[in-house]
């Protein structure tokens, strides 16, 4: 195949405009920062994923254990329990604070958001760099917990365990969470200002891509909720280091108070994780259906509705903490309210498919599977918001399966789908479709195999955070561990697919998928300041008639500037003439 000689890879672009590691480390280019976040998140995902695999290995059968006596002869039963408790803690904390929360907003959001706005960068590029450096510092704090015996409090840091016997690792971990919180706040602030101030002429709020609506709602949550986790972590540190009574009853504190503070942040944080994923979903479903997204305003407004309601439902984590039944009742009622805007999004996505032109390219496979995964994850949330049923299911594997369906099945799948979708823009090269589909299948099958059995283990009564379990739960854990092995292979191959694409992938056209948002109107990869000359004119972000397929580019081009061009590509005529459309992924 012959590629146009003017391929953007050979020209000056943001990747080759400056050289040397310092040009990356000290960059203020949102695209480079986005990529560095991306690789940082990959590294942390591998780190947290390693512990996930160790957990599943340990739980594969009631008497497996990962500490082979030949390897570690001195490992007594108690030392094994200590090791296990550290593993699930690190898995949870790393995956939440260092992978899912920064995953889509900081990595994909940083890369895409300014280009989608036709802007040269975010509003505060230096603050953006500072956010990234804080992120690295926070990650280092978490890694340092290993030097002081490891953290074993669970990612929730509940006192009085965390303030009592848990050890010095609590200091590093809470400090890390505090620093990561600021990284998150600054990123959110940057995005809110950028969206308010840098929208191009013509892009009124209701002409904004839905990804930006989702990122906007997320950013508002980051700014308003994250300070509370910062405060809670400081209070925890104050109590731990100075013995000032805040949470410990002996000192005059109340452990349930911490739970209120913690979930006041951590429940909105769940939406910090899922809202951007919903934004990616809306982009993918729209583009790969070649049809305006159904119910644009409903999807946009439901993002804001979710953001608002998410602030007043935290108490559903505490139905069994001993909080007053009246409070539980109010929180239960409000929690059901979140289901409505979430359902609205799903119904609108499904309706977008109706009478579309559905491509099964890798990003779309991830998007379609999310309808099932988010369906299961969201609907199982209804069981847990029902107070009577939650009594039985609380803190069992039912909860574990529920939040993995939402945070991994939906957020991580959207993240991977988004990476496949925007990779041509990031590196100017296409990923292998074949490898992409195989890895999708492995991840999808593996994920369902891992977490569906855990629902039943939960209803049968298996508590979470257990080092071992009664034999009656063996069958669910066995299948769960088999599924985890599939995910391991799938994720390693996904990484290989990404590296293969970056190094040897086919050069990408400016607009391989037929997206209409502005990032597809510049070259792949984009020049240093995103657009050569003036940014393109802004149209409806989902009016697919604005772009047309051009066979010799194997990609899409803007339709309007071509109107007077005698060489304008006529898709219908080409179909009649029997031209092969290699990149259409039928």
């Amino acid at each position, binding site marked *: 195949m012959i590629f146009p000689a003017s391929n953007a890879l050979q020209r000056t672009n943001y990747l080759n405009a400056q050289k040397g590691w310092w040009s990356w480390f000290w960059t203020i280019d949102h695209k480079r920062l986005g990529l560095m976040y991306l690789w940082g998140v990959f590294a942390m995902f591998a780190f947290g994923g390693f512990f996930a695999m160790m957990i599943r290995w340990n739980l594969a059968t009631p008497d497996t254990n990962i500490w082979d006596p030949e390897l570690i002869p001195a490992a007594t039963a*108690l030392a094994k*329990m200590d090791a296990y*408790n550290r593993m699930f803690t690190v898995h949870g904390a790393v995956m939440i604070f260092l992978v899912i929360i920064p995953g889509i907003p900081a990595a994909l959001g940083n890369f895409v958001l300014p280009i989608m706005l036709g802007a040269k960068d975010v509003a505060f590029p230096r603050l953006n760099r500072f956010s990234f450096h804080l992120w690295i510092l926070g990650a280092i704090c978490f890694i340092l917990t290993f030097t002081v015996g490891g953290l074993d409090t*669970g990612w929730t840091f*509940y006192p*009085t*365990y965390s303030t009592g*016997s848990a050890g010095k690792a609590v200091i590093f971990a809470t400090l890390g969470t505090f620093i990561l919180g600021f990284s998150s706040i600054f990123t959110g602030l940057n995005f809110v200002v950028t969206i308010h101030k840098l929208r191009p002429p013509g892009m009124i709020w209701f002409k904004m891509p839905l990804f930006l609506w989702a990122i906007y709602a997320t950013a508002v949550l980051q700014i308003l909720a994250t300070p509370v986790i910062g405060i809670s972590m400081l209070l925890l540190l104050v109590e731990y280091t100075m013995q000032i009574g805040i949470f410990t*009853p002996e000192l005059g504190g109340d*452990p349930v108070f911490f739970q209120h503070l913690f979930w006041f942040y951590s429940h909105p944080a769940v939406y910090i994780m899922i809202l951007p994923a919903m934004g990616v979903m809306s982009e993918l479903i729209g583009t790969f259906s*070649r049809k305006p*997204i159904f*119910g*644009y*305003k409903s999807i946009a407004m439901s993002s804001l509705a979710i953001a608002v309601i998410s602030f007043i439902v935290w108490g559903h984590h505490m139905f*069994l*903490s*001993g909080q007053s039944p009246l409070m539980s*009742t109010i929180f239960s009622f409000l929690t*059901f309210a979140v289901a*409505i805007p979430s*359902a609205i999004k799903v*119904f609108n996505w*499904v309706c977008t*498919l*109706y009478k*579309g*032109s*559905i491509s*099964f390219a890798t990003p779309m496979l991830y998007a*379609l599977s999310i*309808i099932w995964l988010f*369906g*299961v994850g969201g*609907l*199982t949330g*209804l*069981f847990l918001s*029902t*107070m*009577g*049923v939650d*009594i*039985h299911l609380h*803190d069992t594997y039912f909860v574990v399966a529920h939040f993995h369906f939402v945070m991994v099945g939906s957020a991580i799948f959207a993240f991977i789908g988004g990476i496949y979708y925007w990779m041509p823009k990031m590196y100017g090269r296409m990923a292998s479709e074949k490898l992409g589909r195989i890895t999708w299948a492995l991840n999808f099958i593996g994920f369902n195999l891992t977490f569906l059995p855990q629902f039943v283990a939960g*209803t*049968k*009564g298996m*508590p*979470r*955070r257990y*080092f071992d*379990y009664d034999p009656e739960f063996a069958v669910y854990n066995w299948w769960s561990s088999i599924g985890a092995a599939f995910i391991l292979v799938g994720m390693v191959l996904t990484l290989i697919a990404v590296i293969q694409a970056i190094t040897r992938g086919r050069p990408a056209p400016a607009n391989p998928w*037929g997206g209409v948002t502005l990032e597809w109107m510049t070259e792949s990869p984009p020049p240093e300041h995103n657009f050569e000359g003036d940014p393109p004119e802004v149209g409806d972000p989902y009016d697919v008639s604005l772009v047309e*397929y051009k066979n010799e580019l194997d990609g899409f081009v803007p339709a309007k500037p071509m109107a007077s061009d005698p060489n304008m590509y006529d*898709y*219908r005529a080409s179909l009649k003439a029997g031209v092969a*459309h290699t990149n259409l*992924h*039928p």
Partner: protein
Amino acid sequence: MMPLLASALAVLQQPQSAPPYDPLGMFPPNASHNAGTSDWVFYFIFWTCLVVLIGVCVATLWFAFRYRRSKVGLIPQDSPHHSTTLEIVWSVVPTFFLVAMFWYGFKDYEDRREIPNDAYEIHVNAAKWSWTFTYPNGYQSQHLTVPADRNVRLRLSSPDVLHSVFIPAFRVKLDVVPGRYNWLWFRAIEPGVFPLYCTEYCGQQHSQMDARVTVMPDAEFDAWLAKESDWGALPPEVAGLKTYGANGCVACHTLDGSAATGPTFGGMFGTQKQLADGSTVTYDENYIRESILTPNVKLAAGFAPNLMPSNFAQALSDQKVDWLIALIKSKGAQ
């Protein structure tokens, strides 16, 4: 189809005191008065969600197949981009179901929170990593025994960290919070033996912190309690063994000479004991008594201070200390 319809009908008429309802076999035994209600609410949500999920997924698959690009080409036919009617329908209809779920869950929860006045109270102390159940007459045990068909109330307290009582067969669970009491209640409906777990992470041996719940016929319960409580009639070493179990010594000290969190009781009496400060002491009645009441004073070699609770001077009567001494003597080395 018929079984599904039958289930749907069963779901629509929630009985007052629900019989066991578990058509898919997803729950542990149904052993308390409102386990059936709880499962019924679960299945009400389950069937509702299943219908929605199947609908959404079938529509997704059908649309994706029917309108695949290889069939319809790159330019799809025109179709609406918005429908206010649909948006209203799929916002309002689910609301009714959500309110129903909330209401059933609320009624169920209310029933668990309204503790009957006549409930038989057992005090539950959850400490890292064992349970102590104290009956009204002062009898203590590491395991829970309750009468069937009688309302039982558990008063929960913890001296150290958060724990949570979970009895799957009764569908009850409640956090044990240091610094305050929490209450839960249930009425067991048939005799049997069921597990009790700790479900709030509490550190190293969280997963080992379980207990046995025995439900015995109401008529036998009082006689059983009286017999179990009367340790004075037992030989001292047998009473010592019961104290050893009931007061939590068993969590850290073995009787067979093997190592654990604390030093073993087996084969020790009369020997010379190595202490942490390098000196030795004769393992006799006085040493045992001192080590129980003030554990940090003569610390055994190889063990850290403050591992053992120092409240046994209050928790154990002189008689119980004597019984423990008798127990250790009976496992002695002479």
